[in-house]
């Protein structure tokens, strides 16, 4: 909203700078806790326990200790492997399903669309126990060991995050003009060929955005990771929870763990920021 109007010039300037200061203050408030997280991770545990801070004397001690205190490397690697592969699969499945929803009117399309929304309405607790039991049953009666394995977590996460990804991809595909595919088809491409060679490249920003979105959600997931893993496939949220359980008083290390946990998603986000933002807002604007 631009302050056009019939107000006198000095009043307009005042409003302008007043709003600017307000904006800066708001942004500062939003960023401050993150800065606090980082600043605290550079203090030592004993200082934080007493509540004293010394910003001029940062130390990496907390980071070093954290890696050796808790098997953080293990959790970190698990999170990276599980989340990136699950996000990849989710994006792949969502791309094909989203394309189908965007382009074709077929019997069951509406049902499918509703079912996809419906999956978001089911509380995790509803199917946590059955999946837990399912994994246990598989382990005891078949050769498939999924409990406490990366594969099991990947399969579960893929299923979880495909629905939202479908919606994102659908919006992206809907934004791509049909003429492109039709031209390819006229040129002799098969439908699948047109999909792969013409549509997907055009949807690349959308694919990247969806991937990062799915990755963010997977990275965040806590409830299922807590119950479907034991010691081999534990992810970072469980590592943090264990950390809290064993070492809660070592706040600097906890903050350091928080920083390390945030870095991958922050990197992924800022690398793809433009596409992600464009993708999410395109979906929003098109409805």
């Amino acid at each position: 909203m631009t302050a056009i109007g019939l107000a006198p010039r000095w009043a307009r300037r005042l409003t302008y700078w007043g709003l600017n200061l307000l904006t800066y203050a708001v942004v500062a408030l939003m960023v401050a806790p993150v800065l606090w997280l980082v600043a605290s991770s550079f203090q030592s545990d004993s200082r934080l326990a007493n509540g004293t801070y010394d910003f001029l004397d940062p130390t990496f001690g907390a980071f070093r200790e954290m890696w050796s205190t808790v098997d953080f490397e293990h959790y970190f690697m698990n999170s990276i492997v599980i989340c990136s592969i699950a996000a990849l699969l989710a994006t792949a499945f969502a791309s094909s399903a989203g394309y189908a929803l965007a382009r074709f009117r077929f019997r069951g399309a509406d049902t499918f669309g509703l079912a996809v929304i419906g999956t978001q309405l089911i509380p995790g607790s509803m199917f946590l126990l059955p999946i837990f039991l399912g994994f246990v049953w598989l382990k005891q009666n078949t050769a498939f060991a999924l409990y406490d394995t990366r594969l099991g977590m990947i399969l579960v996460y893929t299923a979880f995050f495909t629905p939202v990804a479908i919606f994102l991809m659908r919006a992206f595909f809907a934004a791509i003009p049909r003429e492109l595919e039709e031209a390819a088809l006229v040129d002799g491409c098969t439908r699948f060929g047109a999909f792969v060679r013409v549509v997907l490249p055009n949807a690349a920003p959308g694919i990247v955005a969806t991937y990062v979105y799915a990755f963010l959600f997977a990275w965040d997931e806590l409830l299922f990771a807590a119950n479907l893993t034991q010691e081999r496939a534990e992810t970072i949220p469980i590592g943090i929870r264990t950390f809290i359980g064993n070492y809660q008083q070592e706040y600097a290390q906890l903050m350091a763990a928080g920083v390390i946990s945030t870095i991958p998603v922050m990197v992924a986000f800022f690398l793809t920021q433009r596409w992600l933002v464009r993708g999410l807002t395109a979906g929003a604007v098109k409805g």
Partner: protein
Amino acid sequence: MRSRLNGKRRLLLAFAVAIIPLTILPAAMARTEAPAVTLKLWIMNNGPEPVKDTERIVAPFERSTGIDVDVELVGWDVQYQRITNAAISGESPDVTQAGTTQVPYFAALRGFENLQSRVGQIGGKAAYAPGVWSTTQVVGRSGTWSVPWFTEARTIYYRKDVLRRAGVNPKTAFKSWAAFTRTLQRIRRVKSINGKPIAPFGQPGRVAWDLVHHIMPFVWGAGGRELSANNKQSTIASPQAVTGVKYFADLIPKGVFLKSSLERNAPQVEEQFKGGRIAVWIGGPWVLATAKRTDDEAWDATARRNVGVAQMPVGPTGKFYTFVGGSNLMLFRYSKHKNEAWQLIRYLSRNDTQLDYARLMGMFPARLAPQKATGKANANQAAFYQAITHGRSYAPIPQWGPVENVYKARFANILEQAAGKGSKPYTRANVASELRAAAREANKLLAQGG
């Protein structure tokens, strides 16, 4: 026609290509197995360096038998859920530590070995004090479901220098409930030591896994019980129990209780005592041992030199009680190396290993002979040994775990009420109603067994 076939073939090919990585994934993710026998042992936070200390203790075992012992730390906050999941799912270590009060609950999950046939090899019932041995039994199921590992009891820790400054005689300071309160009020006048502020008393609140162990001694001291004698009903709302709980919570409005402790968990309040923030605290014997360890940096220098222990105060019944707990070792039914695991348990049950580990942890051995020997070591140890022999524990029923959780939540509500942070004002009537709610919920849980 040709183009159609091409399209279909390509589609199938594409899907096949997509599926192949999935079939490779399991192989890619499999970890290689170590050739020799490796036992996995889960332990909890026993001391400041639990994993290192335990590894040191089992090193001779590893050397003499060639069995590798992989020690993993599972914190008290999360061990309940982890062991439960392990027992149900079949994905478990070989041996786990478990709290003495948890053994019946875990055993009821049917994930553990009955060690009845084997315990004869380590002396059986006769090698342990009756109270300790009873923690291996489960009401309603015959058998021996765990082997006692170490014992601990809680008693009063205090700062000798602070008591001196407040002009209180340590011999009578904590004799009775009235004396306890008076002492804390006198200490309150000592606002700081060496320039650092110090509060009289502090205990953790809702997030402490052992909150119930702190308060129950006062319930017992007032003549109350946590469950009825036949373990079928909760009696936590009896007038005596209310008196006991109220005595403890009253310390908060009296101004002698550091309120910020309530936001913290047990290790954090332990650090508050070590760091010189509180003068009196109720804790277990391991803290005493850490005072001598230079690698424990949480100790304030003055605090370290001035640690004293005293018996719990005598309540209206004329007796004093304390919570006696400790940990036992349980053998998982799913272990692939049961004989080796039993060997490890046997090793940890040897009198000399018991003495070594206990000394390292600052706990007491679970076996009778070394337990007595440790009790004779010095005056402070004698105080703890007294506590052990006067100690009580909870009913060995499977539902105790969930019941304890219910009590914990209600006790926490009462403490927060007393701190002025509850939803209702702090009165005896409200304490009683909170405990009645606890009793109703506990009865529901107790009724599960049918």
